[in-house]
């Protein structure tokens, strides 16, 4: 389809842009552009149709099943959107006087109260814009803690190979050296290898739990104990918190610091580029390092406090993606004390139910009870029948199911990582299982046809290699 720029006609205009209602200023000639901006000119109906056309070519949670492992593509209740559109939340400016935005500050304070309770932490910041940004902030807290205690040589972060790929990247971004440790045969952190890895230079460990194999770390208390005994701190990657929220708390397992993906676990929309929110929670002894400003309540008035000597500073402009926090708070309050754990249990139940149905044909990488997701390996089928994880993913598209995450985690060859999420009903899972099983059987019988899929989608098999080797990252005006 054509790009907006290619649809542009010079004389077209849209009427929905408001007239300028502030005084215009004449700038000095020497700082003005010499050429006009290359903007597309379109009518309102052209723009509207363009985006509708794009929407028809995409697949969202509202279109159908979306079992994209580790991404928690669950349905986001409309009530959250309704709350986030209230004028008191939308028509505010970040530089407004504090006394005129007390409601907004109360939202941040309430969200902190509920989410620290759910995670077992003492304090929290909402500044980070997304998950990896939350990890970055969390590891900066750990780094600051060591520096303030004179332990500048603690510069190694341990990351098990079943962690999210962002964990080692985060540690490296914070100037830490990454020490990878392999998992055991059944997918758990290897305690002996962990004991051998810790030492006087250990800053901490980053643990993804449940891990990317969809397994709850069995020896979690020993893991936190071993790292603490060595003088390191323990970081919880809470991206998969939807599997445990309201049932157990990372704070009680011994973790010092955690990030949450509000845009995943707490049902705010994501997948289209955000915005997200990577809230970071910590125990009291790390609170003094949190990004500033923090919110305080005194004499019934909320205010921002910037005078914080040991803070790591700012990690984002203003207070983070505020409206995402509004949506997450609406979600948390809708579910309440009873709904939060039920949601987690449903996530685990759905994943186990679907895993059981699919194991009729597919090989499960780590059989047994899973948490909110499980991993299939197509290793045998790839070698014996030339049917790969990628082929299964492409075949699903023709059945209007979004493919699972493919080729991740890296420790499973030909991986398909499936997360049905808590919001799907049994009927959806039954129908999806029928599709998974029938495309499997057809692909094994006729690999040639499988290699051609998808045939019904607007785009067949894009040239992934070509795109990676010669990426075209933006539209370039040919004139």
């Amino acid at each position, binding site marked *: 389809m054509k790009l907006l720029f290619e649809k542009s006609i010079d004389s077209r205009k849209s009427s929905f842009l408001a007239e300028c209602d502030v005084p215009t200023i004449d700038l000095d000639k020497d700082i003005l552009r010499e050429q006009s901006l290359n903007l597309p000119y379109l009518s309102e109906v052209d723009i509207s149709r363009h985006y509708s056309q794009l929407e028809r070519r995409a697949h969202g949670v509202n279109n159908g099943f979306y079992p994209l492992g580790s991404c928690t593509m669950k349905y986001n209740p409309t009530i959250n959107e309704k709350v986030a559109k209230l004028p008191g939340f939308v028509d505010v400016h970040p530089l407004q006087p504090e006394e005129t935005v007390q409601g907004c500050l109360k939202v941040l304070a309430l969200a902190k109260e509920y989410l620290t309770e759910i995670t077992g932490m003492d304090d929290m910041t909402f500044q980070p814009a997304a998950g990896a940004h939350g990890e970055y902030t969390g590891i900066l807290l750990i780094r600051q803690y060591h520096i303030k205690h004179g332990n500048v040589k603690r510069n190694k972060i341990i990351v098990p190979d079943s962690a999210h790929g962002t964990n080692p990247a985060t540690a490296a971004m914070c100037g830490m050296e990454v020490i990878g440790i392999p998992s055991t045969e059944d997918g758990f952190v290897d305690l002996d290898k962990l004991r051998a890895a810790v030492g006087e230079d250990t800053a901490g460990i980053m643990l993804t739990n449940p891990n990317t194999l969809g397994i709850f770390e069995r020896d979690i208390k020993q893991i936190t104990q071993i790292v603490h005994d060595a003088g390191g701190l323990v970081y919880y990657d809470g991206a998969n918190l939807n599997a445990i929220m309201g049932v157990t708390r990372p704070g009680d397992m011994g973790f010092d610091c955690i990030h949450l993906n509000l845009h995943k676990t707490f049902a705010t929309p994501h997948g289209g580029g955000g915005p997200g929110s990577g809230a970071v929670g910590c125990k009291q002894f790390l609170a003094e390092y949190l990004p500033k400003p923090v919110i305080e309540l005194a004499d019934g008035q909320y205010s921002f406090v910037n005078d914080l000597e040991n803070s790591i500073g700012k990690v984002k402009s203003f207070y983070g993606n505020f409206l995402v926090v509004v949506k997450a708070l609406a979600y948390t309050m809708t579910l309440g004390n009873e709904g939060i754990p039920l949601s987690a249990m449903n996530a685990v139940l759905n994943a186990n139910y679907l895993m059981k149905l699919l194991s009729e044909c597919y090989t499960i990488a780590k059989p047994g009870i899973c948490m909110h997701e499980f991993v299939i390996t197509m290793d045998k089928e790839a*070698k014996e029948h030339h049917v790969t994880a990628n082929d299964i993913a492409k075949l699903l598209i023709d059945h209007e199911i979004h493919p699972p995450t493919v*080729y991740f985690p*890296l420790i499973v060859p030909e991986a398909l990582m499936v997360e049905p999420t808590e919001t799907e009903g049994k009927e959806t899972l039954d129908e999806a299982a029928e599709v998974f099983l029938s495309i499997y059987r057809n692909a094994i019988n006729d690999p040639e046809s499988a290699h051609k899929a998808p045939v019904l989608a607007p785009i067949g098999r894009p040239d*992934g*290699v070509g795109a*990676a*080797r010669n990426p075209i990252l933006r539209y370039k005006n040919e004139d």
Partner: protein
Amino acid sequence: MEYPKYLSYSSTHEWVEDLGDNKARIGISDFAQHSMGDIVFVNLPEVGDELLSGESFGDVESVKAVSELYSPFSGKVSAINEQLLDSPELINEKPYESWMLEMEDISDSEELLDADAYEALCDSEEH
């Protein structure tokens, strides 16, 4: 799958060509490039870097995954194949001509396999 006899191999799928005088050339095997799929990016150390045997010296990225490269020796990097940085597809096309780095002052070595033993290892990983 090719396993040239004049090369030695590590269990992590690097090939090694002995250049004599404590020098060697290192790349990745046909088996390694085949299991990775189309390689789109390669990350190599700098000339002069000191490597320890078993240490990661870089990584290769395919559409499927990123895999680390491990040094079979302790020693100093004396040259890198800069052509691969712009044309990583050469690793897929000619794995045994696409050397990644040359090392000198080699001391410690990982246990290396001859072509037959390496082929047996790849067969066992394949099945």
